[in-house]
């Protein structure tokens, strides 16, 4: 178990290094940070001083090592656009994004999995067909359009829910939460549905196809031949086997939720990391982009680790055949 975790962590190190390298390359070689920081008027001496100050005259590997060292301490320099420390900006915005992403993931899982199981078990029923049609539309509807439609209906026409912002937030230490107030919770509903809907349909379709695949398996046929009840076959045998591949994809989808938060946050003017990132892309604010990229990579690696552990818990085949790593 312990060895398994260690090997997984070691496997994710190259991923993080590659991402760090990309971030660093953006930092060092894209655009000209020196002239951006110096502004209009400067002397050659000032320029040389700043280059030395930033360490840009040093060899590549030293620069990279310094970059990684700083990154580990959460030090990414100043935002070109806002002239504030990047770490501070991100820390300020992270709670908004994480709360939104968790709610969206909750919606997607709690609704998507049961819908997938149902449509997998009864593919010909009327309700299944309705679910499938709904999911097809869901897959074809871009996230931003879902948000716009929800705003149009629930904010503009009905006036029930707010269309932008987080409502009133309460600070717990450095964490600002929207869960503590009614207006915060109301503000969360539309963005969470918007963000979760696409993943919901994906999860539903995935669970459905896996379920149908598993139901065709020999061991299900044999379970039927043993006369087990439908309940035991569908929920004990089929669902558990379905979960093995589903866990992987759902893990990846959690990552996608955080990425798609960029879009949702834009639609709802949600003050999270995604909105920060998109504003940075628009104004070529490299430090923020680089920091965001690294942060997302860390998040993904963490999620993947959790997925692997879950996998390990569900599938006994992994537990014994050690060294058969992939």
């Amino acid at each position, binding site marked *: 178990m312990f060895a398994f975790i260690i090997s997984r962590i070691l496997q994710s190190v190259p991923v993080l290094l590659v991402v760090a390298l990309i971030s660093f390359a953006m930092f060092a070689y894209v655009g000209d940070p020196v002239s951006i920081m110096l502004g209009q008027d400067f002397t050659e001496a000032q320029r040389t001083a700043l280059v030395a100050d930033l360490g840009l005259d040093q060899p590549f590997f030293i620069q990279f090592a310094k970059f990684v060292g700083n990154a580990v301490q959460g030090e990414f320099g100043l935002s070109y656009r806002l002239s504030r420390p990047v770490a501070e900006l991100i820390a300020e915005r992270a709670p908004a994004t994480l709360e939104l992403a968790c709610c969206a993931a909750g919606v997607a899982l709690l609704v998507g999995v049961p819908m997938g199981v149902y449509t997998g078990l009864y593919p010909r029923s009327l309700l299944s067909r309705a679910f499938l049609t709904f999911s097809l539309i869901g897959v074809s509807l871009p996230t931003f359009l879902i948000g716009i439609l929800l705003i149009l209906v629930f904010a503009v026409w009905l006036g029930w829910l707010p269309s932008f912002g987080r409502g009133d937030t309460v600070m717990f230490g450095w964490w600002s939460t929207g869960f503590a107030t009614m207006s915060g919770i109301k503000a969360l509903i539309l963005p969470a549905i918007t963000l979760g809907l696409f993943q919901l349909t994906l999860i539903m379709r995935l669970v459905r196809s896996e379920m149908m695949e598993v139901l065709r398996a020999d*061991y299900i046929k044999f379970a039927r*031949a043993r006369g*087990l009840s439908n309940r035991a076959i569908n929920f004990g*045998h089929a669902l558990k*086997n379905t979960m093995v591949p589903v866990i992987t994809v759902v893990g990846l989808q959690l990552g996608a939720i955080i990425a798609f938060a960029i879009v949702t946050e834009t639609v709802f003017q949600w003050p999270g990391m995604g909105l920060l990132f998109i504003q940075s892309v628009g104004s070529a604010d490299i430090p923020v982009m680089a920091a965001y990229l690294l942060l997302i990579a860390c998040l993904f690696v963490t999620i993947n680790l959790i997925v692997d552990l879950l996998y390990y818990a569900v599938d006994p085949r992994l537990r014994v055949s050690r060294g058969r790593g992939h």
Partner: protein
Amino acid sequence: MSPILEVRDLRVEFPTRRGTLVALDGVSFSIAPGEVLGVVGESGAGKSMTGAAIIGLLEPPGRIAGGQILLQGKRIDNLRYDQMRRIRGREIGAIFQDPLTTLNPLYTVGDQLIETMLTHLPISPAVAKRRAVEWLEMVGIPAAAQRVQSYPHEFSGGMRQRVVIALALCAEPKLIVADEPTTALDVSIQAQVIALLKRLAREKGTAMMLVTHDMGVIAETADRVAVMYAGRIAEIGPVREVVKNPQHPYTAGLMASIPPLDRRVERLAQIDGAMPRLSAIPQGCAYNPRCPRVFSRCAVERPELLDAGTTLAACWLHAKAMTDA
């Protein structure tokens, strides 16, 4: 003694877009308590399909389109799914071909045994747990008390098939439908598994329908044998008679193609051509295009099972009384 299983004029159809295929037609046989009926034939002859129809697990869109299946005199072919479910495992056990895929990889073999017993038998979980170990011992798994906690992937193929046998027998059914139980196993393991199956069936008084394409297995295990060809029974009778003295030209061809153990032969006989596909079964006797003893009637009329002395054979050669008259 009244038979455990009686199949009367069974017909199974597969509706497809190119028309309805008749996979089984006019299949009739019975199995007495404690008897082992072997069913042989080439792949696609309908052996496995017959087994699937009996346990009520035909792959859709296949369906029973005619005839009756009686278990201890009661019809089971028209039962609702849930009624049939109670019979499966409890009255009729099943063994499938590939032990590598028939066990759920995520549950221990013990859990799967306990689950099956608790579904069918009025016993407590503690008793079921004890019996699970006993069953593993009975099918010859060493250190059963520990192995009961093992997952299927921790067993070899032969051992897994022993577990499958335990699963099929653990609710003490009166009939076992074994569909190619040794085909996926190493040759050296096959004999052991067959011997085990035979011994347990004898001990428990369980009747068995043993589907295989291996005449050797049949000759060694079965009391009677049914030879199937293109969805019908070509010949059925006591195993020794069918092997030594086949009455249907197809059975004769089949037997001639088995290498004899007691003498050397230069060249084995073979049957020319191939079994027809279900979509292109010839008129009259399905075997007539390949039959060395074909005559005019064979291409026109389809023979029913006729009395051929020691066996029943679906061949006009045995309708002499009628042709002579």
